[in-house]
């Protein structure tokens, strides 16, 4: 599906093990601007810092790994850039974006996200959602108001409770997960998971894991076949080998696909 405005932006930087996906919102082309700023700020910040440092380095003052800090800082910076752009340009007022980003290093992945763009992991035959949406629906599910099954019937989809660029500050959610050889990571905008059941995502990734471009195309096709109207973006990452520091992770294959 091709749209004149595509509010999604994606980027892959195999050199530093970084993938980023953002789904913007805002009138005219503001959504596209917001997601574009978010992705470029995060990519630029992280790749610049990793030129003379390693993600496993610890920041003595903050007592945290550089990889985690970089994700956190860069998403906050993206927030500030978008917020300021929105303040200074009336046509961009109120624009914002979701973001989900993975930084792979040392046989782990640091995942940062804001909003309802997701990261999934296929390990063996099990598909799991790595991120937890910042959305009204997720809060209702957590609060026991509504079951996961009923949530599909909800008319309150697409209401995010956190977004990048709408307020002067944002708190990204960051977690670090172990990575195993053979894992497949899927980053996607809500255009995919609104339209394709997890079961079908799982079946597709399992069946087509040897051919990620085909898997990406198939996921987008299923979203469109099911009546998808929103942008659908997916990034697929397959872990082909161990990549513990320093430089062992070259065997990784990245693939991204967007429509």
């Amino acid at each position, binding site marked *: 599906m091709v749209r004149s405005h595509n509010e999604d932006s994606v980027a892959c930087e195999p050199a530093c093990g970084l993938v980023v996906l953002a789904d913007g919102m805002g*009138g005219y082309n503001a959504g596209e601007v917001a997601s574009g700023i978010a992705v470029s700020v995060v990519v630029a910040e992280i790749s610049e810092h990793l030129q003379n440092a390693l993600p496993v380095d610890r920041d003595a003052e903050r007592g945290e790994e550089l990889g985690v800090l970089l994700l956190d800082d860069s998403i906050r910076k993206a927030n500030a850039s978008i917020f300021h752009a929105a303040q200074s340009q009336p046509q961009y007022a109120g624009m914002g974006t979701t973001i989900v980003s993975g930084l792979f290093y040392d046989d782990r992945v640091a995942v940062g996200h804001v909003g309802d763009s997701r990261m999934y992991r296929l390990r063996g035959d099990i598909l799991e959602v790595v991120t937890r949406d910042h959305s009204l629906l997720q*809060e209702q599910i957590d609060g026991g108001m509504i079951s996961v099954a009923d949530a599909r019937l909800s008319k309150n989809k697409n209401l995010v409770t956190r977004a990048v660029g709408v307020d002067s500050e944002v708190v990204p959610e960051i977690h670090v997960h172990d990575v195993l050889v053979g894992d497949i990571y899927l980053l996607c905008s809500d255009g995919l998971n609104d339209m394709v059941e997890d079961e079908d995502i799982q079946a597709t990734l399992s069946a087509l894991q040897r051919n990620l471009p085909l898997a990406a195309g198939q996921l987008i096709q299923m979203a469109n076949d099911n009546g998808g109207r929103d942008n659908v973006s997916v990034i697929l990452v397959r872990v082909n080998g161990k990549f513990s520091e320093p430089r062992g992770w070259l065997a990784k294959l990245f693939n991204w696909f967007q429509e």
Partner: protein
Amino acid sequence: MAAKLILSMDGAVIKEYPLNKERMTIGRKAHNDIAIDNLAVSGEHAAIVTILHDSFLEDLDSTNGLEVNGVPTKKHFLQNNDVIEIGKYKLKYINDQVTQTTAADFEKTMVMRAPVKQVAPSANKPAAAVAPAQGQASSNKPAQASVESTGKFDAPSVSAVSQSAKPTVSQSKPAGDMQQDTMQKAAVVQVLTGPNAGKELELVKNLTTLGKPGLQVAVLTRRPHGYFITHVEGERFPLVNGEALTSQAHQLNDHDVIELAGVKMEFYFKK
């Protein structure tokens, strides 16, 4: 437009109640938002909590209970046209909001500001916790007030659709109906040669892989307008009626013969 309840007894409509408060109560006593003066109805019988476009019904430990669509229920996520029964009274729930799958709605991802966090109720007392402090000033549309729409798109979705060669069958279906979308005929692949000759494989899933992993694999996908075969892995591409596939998906016709990893099989539609 707010959702509403239509109160009736023995088929005669008594009154309509728009669900324009976060929490509305149904009961015999006069202070209820929906007061039903009948001894079969408890003083405070039930409550309906509405969050934006979704409404939840809860029995407030009433003496005689309630039913939704004929099923005794304590708690229920109301769907359009549900009928709540309390004694001889019926309350029909009408929520003809344009559902999520209309074009306009999908293009609006919206941000909710901070106060909304309070909406997340504790697991035990959902109804009570759901109405946070925002209620006083704007009791008509309290929940809406905290939503800030940042999504207004001028691009009509029609232009998007026209470029995607998408079938029209499934466009206006809600996501939950995906399985029903495949209205086409069931299809089968029957093995013609090799040790498994004669075996049939019914294509019941959206995605079926064929072949030997590491050697040659193809995938059969079921889509609203037919079945397609695509090469997945292997140096050699599968043959359909003797011709090698390209890297593109290829639509299958009745009685096509597929050759894959040295095995011939026939694709056909079930009668």
